[in-house]
């Protein structure tokens, strides 16, 4: 019976798997590999919890994050308020739970801006070379030579404080490393025979970049974006702390630390819990990025 089962498997193997199915299997394999390693598994699980929390925030938050209760200000952690309350009597746990939505919004929008911009700048510069490459890379160098928080500060100062402007500012400072990476990858592929073959078949430069080069750059760019998400969270929290990111009523973690700072010496929970959330999430993104690099890089196998 075992033999007949084995031979059935053998028959089922060749060729006929559909494309979507194999992509799904690859995704499953990547997730399995991430979970197999303790550090990347930790990252993956924390990010999953973060996503889930943001999704069902109104259901799991015990209180409304913005309701002021002056009778209950600066309560230490207790059974009623697990993470305590702040100077206006708002529940800190609820504010942290709602804060996941803000952090995720920032991360998502920044990645959506930064990924394509970096990829387009890097692949075109690498593929075309010449003066176009020189100009693009010098622009990238200029952006790279500023410390990202200072450049974000300058942008926010010019555009005005607020969450949207903080997102734009972070996006503007986060694309250069990705462009550099995409260009370096493109340079290693552009002399490959399959690019020459594609060119000989009459493919335009646009078609070669989109269909042949970008898929090859995508895994490393994805890893790089995941790794830079930790920096994005820290920069967003930093801008929030300086009062240039999310504005007061919003439960943004950095802004929570900034307001809690004044009461920090007597009421440690105001700063410790949002700070711990920032630490945990940026650590998780770093570990997930490292794990993704191992899982997606065919050269390390």
């Amino acid at each position: 019976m075992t033999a007949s089962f084995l031979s059935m498997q053998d028959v089922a193997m060749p060729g006929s798997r559909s494309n979507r199915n194999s992509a799904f299997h690859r995704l499953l394999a990547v997730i399995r590999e991430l979970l197999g390693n303790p550090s990347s598994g930790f990252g993956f699980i924390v990010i999953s919890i973060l996503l889930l929390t943001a999704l069902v925030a109104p259901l799991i938050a015990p209180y409304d994050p913005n309701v002021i209760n002056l009778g209950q200000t600066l309560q230490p952690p207790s059974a009623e308020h697990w993470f305590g309350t702040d100077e206006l009597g708002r529940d800190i746990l609820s504010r942290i739970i709602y804060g996941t939505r803000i952090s995720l919004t920032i991360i998502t929008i920044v990645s959506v801006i930064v990924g394509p911009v970096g990829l387009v700048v890097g692949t075109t510069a690498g593929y075309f070379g010449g003066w176009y490459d020189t100009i693009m890379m010098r622009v990238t160098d200029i952006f790279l030579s500023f410390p990202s928080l200072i450049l974000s500060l300058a942008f926010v100062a010019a555009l005005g404080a607020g969450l949207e402007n903080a997102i734009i500012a972070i996006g503007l400072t986060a694309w250069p490393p990705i462009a550099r990476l995409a260009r370096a990858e493109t340079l290693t592929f552009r002399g490959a025979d399959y690019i020459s073959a594609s060119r000989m078949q009459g493919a335009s430069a646009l078609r070669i970049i989109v269909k042949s080069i970008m898929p090859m750059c995508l895994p490393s760019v994805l890893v790089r974006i995941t790794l830079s998400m930790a920096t994005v969270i820290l920069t967003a929290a930093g801008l929030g702390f300086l009062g240039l990111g999310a504005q007061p009523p919003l439960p943004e973690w950095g802004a929570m630390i900034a307001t809690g700072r004044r009461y920090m010496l007597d009421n440690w929970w105001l700063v410790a819990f949002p700070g711990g959330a920032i630490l945990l999430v940026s650590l998780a993104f770093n570990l997930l990025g490292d794990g993704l690099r191992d899982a997606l890089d065919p050269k390390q196998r």
Partner: protein
Amino acid sequence: MTAISVRNLSIDLGYGLAKKRILGDVSFSVEAGESFGLVGESGSGKSTILRCIARLLTSWEGDIELEGRSIKDMPFAEYCRMVQMVFQDPYGSLHPRQSIRTALQEPLRIHRMDRPLQRMEQALTDVGLNSDFLSRYPHELSGGQRQRVAIARALILEPRILLLDEPTSALDVSVQAEVLNLLANLRAKRNLTYLFVSHDLAVIDHMCERLAVMQHGRVVEIMGRDVLATGQAKDPYARELIHASLEYDHAV
């Protein structure tokens, strides 16, 4: 009719005193339906000539004409339908993240050819593979199968001229023979013109009617296949090369 005519093809790299000649005044012509070999040691410029004809290198001097028209003023789409190339390394010539279906579909889409599925299946059948291979990825194929797919991809645009850059040197000896026989059959069936680069004289002897021997970027002699058997080449280097190859064959 002359399919390929190369006249005074030269390439110089560098400027002034540092100027170095890579190819010097290469001239030869290939008749339609003929198979012409280019032999020589590594670095003698064989593949460079092929890349000039393939328009992958553009900074050369001289004239290259295909079917009587200079490749510099031919519209690119028309050029692609006339000439295709098979590369040396079957592991590098197929895109690792594209399925065979995508690899074969792309040229058909670019040139807006009709009945794509039928053409793709036919192209695979012609190189001895079945249509199940369409959904496979290059890493699921052996070296010989990959090279067959590369040949199918080159032939799907129905070119009249095929440039072959050592198409079998990366393959196992038994697979080499299969691929060479496949190429010979395809040429007979479709009346293709081959320009065949190799450093293996036995392969050239099997595949080509005429050949050019190259050394240091120059063609030293153009000869017929029969000269390979007798070893009566006029040029001393060509004679040496043929003798060395014959002795090697005896030794093996």
